[in-house]
């Protein structure tokens, strides 16, 4: 392991003498860089997808959790007592963060689709809606329902549980799906970078033979190739990541303008990913090239 660290140091400091023995370009090099760039592009896309899916899932879960309402139906004169009893129950329920009794105007807005704008709200025996905002832990809907039955029989809890469950499951699936894509892409990246390193090295078998014959140590040979190929992978990955970020920004802007894909994009600390990806690629290329070079060397004395 010590020599690997020494080698990484050498990689950063640079040893042009060793680097010059590696043929500079050729189509295998282009193929390597292009494949790496493509993989990095996909990689950054997949990361953003996974992060966005996570965000979407979180938002769904939050908004669904928020949307519990309690409906109090009572005749006009008993309404005030019924609402007060309900509020008492809600205020003493674990997991309920805050409650809000909707004003008449708010209620009217909600009912416009059903009764038209000219509805006579005042004359209608409208029920009273109470919005329940749970804490992050959430409350137990069955427990609350039972308590309301006992202490405020006019109140009905509507926690939207019926249609909430499949949506939450869908969000979880979405997260799983992105993780699946992410690992698929990770495997592909590893395979492509490894294969590219092997292909490039086996195209250089003659070079390695010549170097070894004129007295080069394994260290020297490995370093020369590792340096070149690692830099190639980093450059390819950087190009891919930049292209990826441009594409993501375009998409997310276009999406925002259309009120769509609003959660798509990089935010806050996640901006570190584009920096990390090329380094990961470099590290991958480093070990793949090193292993391939040493394997080729082992066939020679």
């Amino acid at each position: 392991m010590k020599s690997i660290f020494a080698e990484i140091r050498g990689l950063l400091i640079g040893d042009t003498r060793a680097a010059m023995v590696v043929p500079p370009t050729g189509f295998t090099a282009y193929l390597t860089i292009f494949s790496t760039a493509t993989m990095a592009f996909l990689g950054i896309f997949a990361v953003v997808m996974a992060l966005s899916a996570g965000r979407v899932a979180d938002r769904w879960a939050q908004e669904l959790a928020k949307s519990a309402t309690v409906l109090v139906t009572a005749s006009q004169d008993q309404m005030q007592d019924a609402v007060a009893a309900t509020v008492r129950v809600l205020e003493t329920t674990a997991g309920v963060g805050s409650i809000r009794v909707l004003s008449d105007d708010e209620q009217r807005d909600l009912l416009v689709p059903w009764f038209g704008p000219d509805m006579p709200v005042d004359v209608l025996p409208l029920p009273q809606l109470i919005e329940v905002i749970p804490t992050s832990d959430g409350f137990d809907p069955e427990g609350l329902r039972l308590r309301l039955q006992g202490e405020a029989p006019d109140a009905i809890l509507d926690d939207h549980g019926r249609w909430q469950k499949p949506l939450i499951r869908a969000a979880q699936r979405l997260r799983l799906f992105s993780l699946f894509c992410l690992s698929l892409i990770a495997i592909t990246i590893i395979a492509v970078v490894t294969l590219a390193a092997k292909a490039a090295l086996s195209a250089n078998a003659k070079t390695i033979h010549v170097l070894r014959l004129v007295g080069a140590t394994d260290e020297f040979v490995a370093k020369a190739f590792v340096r070149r190929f690692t830099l190639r992978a980093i450059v390819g990955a950087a190009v891919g990541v930049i292209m990826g970020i441009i594409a993501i920004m375009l998409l997310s802007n276009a999406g925002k303008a259309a009120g769509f894909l609003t959660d798509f994009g990089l935010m806050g600390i996640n901006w570190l990913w584009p920096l990390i990806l090329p380094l990961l690629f470099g590290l991958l290329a480093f070990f793949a090239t090193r292993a391939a070079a040493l394997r080729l060397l082992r066939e020679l004395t």
Partner: protein
Amino acid sequence: MNATIERDQNVIELQAASYSYGHTALLSDMSFSIEPGSFHFLTGPSGAGKSTLLKLLYAELLPSEGTVSLFGQSVDQMSRDQIAFLRRRIGLVHQNCDFLDHLSMTENICLPLTVAGQSARDDLDQLLAWVGLTHRADALPPQLSGGERQRAALARALIQAPEVVLADEPTGNIDWEMSQRLLTLLIELNKMGTTVLIATHDLNLIRLAKSEIAVRVLRIKDRQVQFAGSDL
């Protein structure tokens, strides 16, 4: 790295060494030694195993049986790095001289210095002039003629002022005049203490060398290495 060798120690020593590519032995039970400062030729018909023997002496191949010792150390017991350092003391001309095609001839000739982390020699121009490559110094290997490549290979073998020179048919593609010139160079180096071993089928070359200095001729026959007499 013991850079100096004892006066009496043999540079190359084989004890009951044999080598086989597959099942049947190509070279078997070879025992001979080469003293420092000596000048040897190696002959034998095409396919006899001359190149194979030279590869054994350069640790490119390891003996199937027996021991091959270089500078007093058995190649079997050397680490890979030790073999690399050993090669810096030996100049090699391969039969099919391979170069790095993307480097100029000068860079190729200086490659042994590059991999050893040394800077170019002052007398590089002199060496290039001697092998007649001054005007091709910046050419790439594929742009050289067969003979020019062979001369470049010899220059690469000599660039590090090695203690031993192993040359496999170094004049196969070179005209007689230039061959004489190269032989003269090797004889001069030998007089200054370099051990020389040349595999060749050019009997004229051996005769010429014999007329100048004391040389010994090794011959591969029936899978064995023999010292040839004066019956050339």
